[in-house]
């Protein structure tokens, strides 16, 4: 079964103080129901909304300059390459027209040959994340790292257990949040000034419930992943196993 995992936007609570009224939390579901899961037959329609996909193998690979800030585009490309290296996956990356849906997504289906699935980053979401220039770089990276976390679970097959028979995405989202937090911890080890806290602000900033988990639950997942890298200094393989156990133990 091919799935697309939806990552909702992300802001609420204290984050609203930063982003004002445009920062809003939403849980938008597909017309077919099923929470965040989008039926396979819709994958092609989402790919049709994609811009120019690329596989970011290194920081020298240029992604589409969509932020309006060349230095941020370059830094984002470098971060994508770091994610690929940190997570041991190489998905295709593309922006797509998310209109008012404000999302990023991951699917195991590659939009480009030989890629480990596809990460699709909504242009509306990008625009919103850019609104606070002081945290925009880390905010964008946090969302992308969450999607890369999904790619990890697609590639190693954990997604089947994480979703389970009922198809509920909560545990897979917890795993993706954990892996995003793990990436923030790895980055903070490399660069102490890295704004790891923004990952909680963004991914854990969602108010209310929803199938991704509450703000508190998401923040906990991010922080656990962060601690696995920063404090416990777990290897990727160990972090994946620990993140899997963490996610499987969670209840919505």
């Amino acid at each position: 079964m091919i799935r697309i995992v939806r990552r909702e936007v992300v802001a609420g609570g204290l984050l609203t103080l930063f982003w004002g009224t445009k920062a809003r939390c939403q849980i938008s579901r597909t017309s077919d129901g099923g929470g965040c899961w989008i039926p396979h037959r819709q994958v092609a329609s989402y790919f049709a909304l994609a811009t120019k996909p690329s596989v970011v193998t290194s920081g020298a690979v240029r992604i589409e300059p969509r932020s309006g800030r060349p230095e941020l585009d370059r830094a984002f490309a470098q971060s994508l390459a770091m994610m690929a290296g940190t997570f041991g996956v190489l998905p295709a990356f593309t922006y797509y027209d998310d209109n008012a849906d404000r999302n990023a997504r991951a699917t195991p289906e590659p939009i480009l040959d030989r890629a480990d699935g596809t990460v699709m980053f909504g242009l509306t979401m990008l625009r919103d994340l850019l609104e606070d220039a002081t945290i925009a770089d880390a905010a964008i990276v946090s969302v992308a790292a969450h999607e890369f976390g999904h790619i990890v679970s697609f590639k190693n097959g954990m997604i089947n257990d994480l979703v389970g028979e009922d198809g509920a995405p909560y545990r897979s989202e917890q795993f993706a949040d954990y892996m995003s937090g793990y990436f923030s911890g790895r980055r903070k080890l490399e660069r102490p000034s890295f704004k790891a806290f923004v990952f909680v602000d963004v991914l854990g900033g969602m108010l209310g419930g929803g199938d991704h988990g509450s703000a508190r639950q998401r923040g906990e997942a991010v922080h656990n992943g962060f601690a696995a890298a920063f404090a416990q200094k777990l290897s990727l393989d160990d972090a994946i196993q620990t993140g899997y156990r963490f996610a499987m133990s969670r209840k919505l």
Partner: protein
Amino acid sequence: MRLIKRMMLSFLMSASVLPTAASAQGFDPRVPLAQIVQAFQICGPPAVYQMLSPQLFQIVAAQTGGRGCYVDIAAAGAITGMQVIDQREFPVGPVYAIRVTHQSGASADWFVGFNRSTGRIEMLTYQNVFAQNPLPSVLNGPTNPLGGSTNPGNRQPIDPKPPAPDTSKQSQGCNLYPDMCK
């Protein structure tokens, strides 16, 4: 007067140097603003004034006696930093709020509005950030197609954000997980 004639001539001969709708995606508004501010400090080069709309060009010429530069902006010293702190889209084009700091320690929030169809700057003004090192009085464009008043004393083209906060102090992540903030 020779300079203003040169400015007028180059202006009339110029093509758009700012992004049109087709090319605006990778646009960094700090680049043209830096050129404009520097031109306001050293009275040129004339080509920089081509970025201004005809009306704005005329106002600058009128305010500066045709020299194209402002004594007080020059006194602020070289630009040492620029940060885009806000952006709003209007039907005519985008308006950016850009915090500019100078060698003297003065800081000002510049508001620069572009006409998407012409690629030129239609609106230009600024507000001082810190009272202890103020820049000179407000510099205004002639008209504000984006809805603001043309009265220099009342002009508020967009509602600027307050100075950028220390995000870590307001961060939910920092409050909940201080180890992520160290």
